[in-house]
């Protein structure tokens, strides 16, 4: 018997042993819940019929119609003028795509809906609700739109809505498969969203036109991970590529499609695999940070690299996030026994532990974190779900604000 046959046999036996065939106790719950639910009308499942050619015409006098038309045109013109004036007067200032910004609304997903909460008032509003399962909201860099992932029967769609929840576009083409929530990244001009998802069975970066939903798959397989648009204009996209055993960072030119490896980031070949992941850019686009495998107690270290000179500064932290002003990085540090969050200057120096963070990180050894738009705090979600906390990068107390009780997915940037 071949090893594959043995594996297949073991798998089938293990499935049979662990499946369980008892009637679940929640069958009654399902019947109670569905008994109160209406079914979708049958006609909603069929495409609309073509309009019949013999639609009866309205019988109106020509002169009357012309007068009405003229009046309507005048009214429409006046309304357009008024609306235009109101729009100009009310048009909010937008933040620059990179650099510090004012803190706006926090977007998060809960029970398949997208909600917003105002950290200043605690007021919660629903951005997108309905039977669809939506998740992973991401504010555009100017804070005017939100992209999120909508689960469909065979994959996902990227949906773009404005700040009021009106749909601007839905990604077209084949459904996106295995969308990486950390791999959703708005371009600086807000016209494109880069999404890391599967294509043809491999990881790939899809560029989705925010206005039309038209997707384009970049020819950078097999390992496109977590794309980062290079400030200030997003003409290049930084991503992880290369062989699994020898990954490296690459830059994809949005202008000519050229792909070039970033010198110094190509790791040594390994019998296992190496870790190389981007952390982010400084706001001026002159330097970027990434972490890589290293013989440290954490297993990785962070390098801040000058793109032009190749000079790099090494920091003893990993899995970091660069601040909006580009001066600091928050990341994880460890002595081998304990782990904590710390903040280090990008120019080098000690990584200062954040008080209270070991208590957050240790129980699960998980933490997601990011800077608030104004860099005054770092939100962190210690576990895979649940409330987020606010950490003070300058050493203040850990806060558990009530508005973050359902977590934080993305924080809107506003003009300062």
């Amino acid at each position, binding site marked *: 018997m071949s*090893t594959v046959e*043995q*594996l297949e046999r*073991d*798998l*089938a036996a*293990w*499935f049979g042993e*662990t*499946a*369980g*065939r*008892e*009637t*679940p106790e*929640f069958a009654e719950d*399902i*019947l109670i819940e*569905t*008994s109160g*639910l*209406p*079914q*979708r009308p*049958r006609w*909603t*499942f069929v495409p609309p019929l073509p309009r019949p050619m013999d639609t009866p015409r309205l019988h109106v006098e020509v002169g009357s119609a012309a007068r009405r038309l003229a009046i309507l045109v005048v009214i429409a013109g006046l309304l357009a003028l008024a609306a235009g004036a109101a729009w100009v007067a009310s048009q909010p200032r937008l933040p620059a795509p990179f650099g510090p910004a004012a803190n706006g609304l926090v977007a998060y997903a809960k029970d398949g809906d997208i909600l917003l909460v105002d950290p200043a008032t605690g007021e919660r509003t629903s951005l997108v609700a309905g039977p669809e*399962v939506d*998740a*992973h909201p991401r504010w555009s860099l100017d804070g005017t739109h939100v992209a999120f992932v909508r*689960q469909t*029967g*065979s994959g996902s769609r990227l949906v773009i809505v404005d700040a009021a929840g009106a749909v601007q576009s839905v990604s077209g083409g084949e459904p996106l*498969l*295995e969308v990486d*929530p*950390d791999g959703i990244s708005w371009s600086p001009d807000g016209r494109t969203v880069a999404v890391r998802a599967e294509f043809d*069975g491999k990881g790939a970066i899809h560029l989705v036109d925010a206005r039309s939903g038209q997707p384009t798959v970049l020819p950078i397989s097999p*390992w496109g*991970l977590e794309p980062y648009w290079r400030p200030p204009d997003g003409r290049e996209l930084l991503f992880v590529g290369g062989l*699994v*055993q020898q*990954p490296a960072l690459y830059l994809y030119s949005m202008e000519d499609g050229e792909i070039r490896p970033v010198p110094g980031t190509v790791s040594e070949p390994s*019998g*296992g*695999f190496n*870790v190389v992941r981007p952390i982010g850019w400084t706001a001026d686009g002159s330097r970027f940070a990434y972490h890589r495998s290293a013989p440290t107690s954490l*297993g990785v270290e962070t390098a801040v690299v000058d793109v032009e000179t190749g000079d790099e500064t090494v920091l003893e932290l990993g*899995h970091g996030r660069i601040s909006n002003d580009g001066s600091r990085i928050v990341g*994880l540090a460890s002595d081998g026994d304990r782990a904590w969050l710390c903040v280090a200057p990008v120019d080098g120096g000690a990584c200062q532990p954040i008080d209270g963070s070991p208590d957050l990180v240790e129980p699960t*050894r*998980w*933490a*997601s*974190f990011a800077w608030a738009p104004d860099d005054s705090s770092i939100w962190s*979600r210690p576990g*895979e*779900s649940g409330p987020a906390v606010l950490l003070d990068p300058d050493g203040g107390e850990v806060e558990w604000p009530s508005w973050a009780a359902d*977590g934080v*997915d993305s924080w809107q940037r506003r003009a300062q």
Partner: protein
Amino acid sequence: MDQRELIALASRGDHGAFAVLVGTSISHLTAVARLIVRDHELARDAVQEAYIRAWRDLPGLREADRFDAWLHRLTVNACLDALRRRRRRPIEIDIHPLVLPSAVDPFGQVANRDQLERGFVRLPPDQRAVLVLHYYVGLSVPSIADTLGIPLGTAQSRLGRALAALRAALSVDDAPPIREHRGQIA
């Protein structure tokens, strides 16, 4: 009353007929969901979601013969949704190779159940699903493609990759690899 009649009645809003359909399929679908998500609560959520969608969208099912495949599809998709929702952020980034070089063949002897469990839960959800549909439900590859609404070649390659990935995961089970997670110390 046979299944076709029950489906016809249920699709016209007969909740009693739907209850019979639920009663005859829920044990099996719950088992499928448990195998895919490896968590009782998640499986329960997924199965509930699948039946709610089934009830709501039953009037749109044009071929009664496809009811079982359709239910499997709803269940698998609900499982994938449940796993994605649970995953959220931080996300485990699967940068590990599908086939890691290995000096030893882990299946020179029968794999123990713990190894299988650990290896299986490392697989991406879609690969778990095809393994369950093939080796537990007993669906052929074309039936898997039909059930999941994916091309035949995709189903074939996904199953192949799932087996290869399971072998690879088992091969590194004894020697902890450097695994990359968002924000997790591996």
